[in-house]
């Protein structure tokens, strides 16, 4: 029973990423979309929280949203996989349900 969690807000604007990491079970997936992609960047005050969750949770980030914001893939936390919209759809199908942390 794995959940696909989506986070669409910057961790500097909202607590959505924090709430997601607090309530995402081991074995679930987190996909950062829209402004949520800022949560995937290394070297920020929020990077450590994502880094330490990597053992239990699979992290993904939506490529088109990274590109729109001028974030190159070398700026991302290690181990976060970049997916496109078809990858977003696949993640939806491969998990049991979607929890949108708005």
């Amino acid at each position, binding site marked *: 029973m794995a959940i696909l969690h989506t986070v*669409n807000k910057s961790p500097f604007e909202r607590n959505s990423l924090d709430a997601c990491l607090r309530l995402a079970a081991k074995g679930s997936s987190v996909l950062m979309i829209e402004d949520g992609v800022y949560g995937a960047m290394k070297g920020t005050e929020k990077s450590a929280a994502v880094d330490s969750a990597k053992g239990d949770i699979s992290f993904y980030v939506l490529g*088109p949203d990274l590109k729109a914001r001028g974030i190159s893939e070398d700026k991302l936390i290690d181990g976060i996989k970049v997916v496109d*919209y*078809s990858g*977003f759809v696949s993640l939806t*199908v491969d998990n049991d*349900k979607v929890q949108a942390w708005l």
Partner: protein
Amino acid sequence: MKLGIQINEGPYNHEASVTALNYCKAAIEAGHEIFRVFFYHDGVNNGTRYSTPPQDDIHIANSWSDLAKEHNLDLVVCVAAAQRRGIVDEGEQERNGKDGNNIADGFRISGLGQLIEAGIESDRLVVFGD
């Protein structure tokens, strides 16, 4: 799979509608069925036919109308949310004594039960919002 889509925000103000549009296109391409797209809260504002965005930018309402036409999608605008925000079809115009209507092609106004049904009948419900 059958996918239910919930969109909570209007066009342009938030990215939600565009993300949902791109998601739906990818889902259709992958062979999935979009059971219903339900527009709630300010999402009802995606269903106006009076939007005139700049020519060099995406026309979000038309994009939904076109996608609906091409793939026979069910685009539903919540009646209560629409009444609050002034999205009106002919039926609502008559019922509420308005002097016109503004619903875009391919959209229909209906009740919240349509969202619940989408949750029941779809294999996955995906929410796009703020």
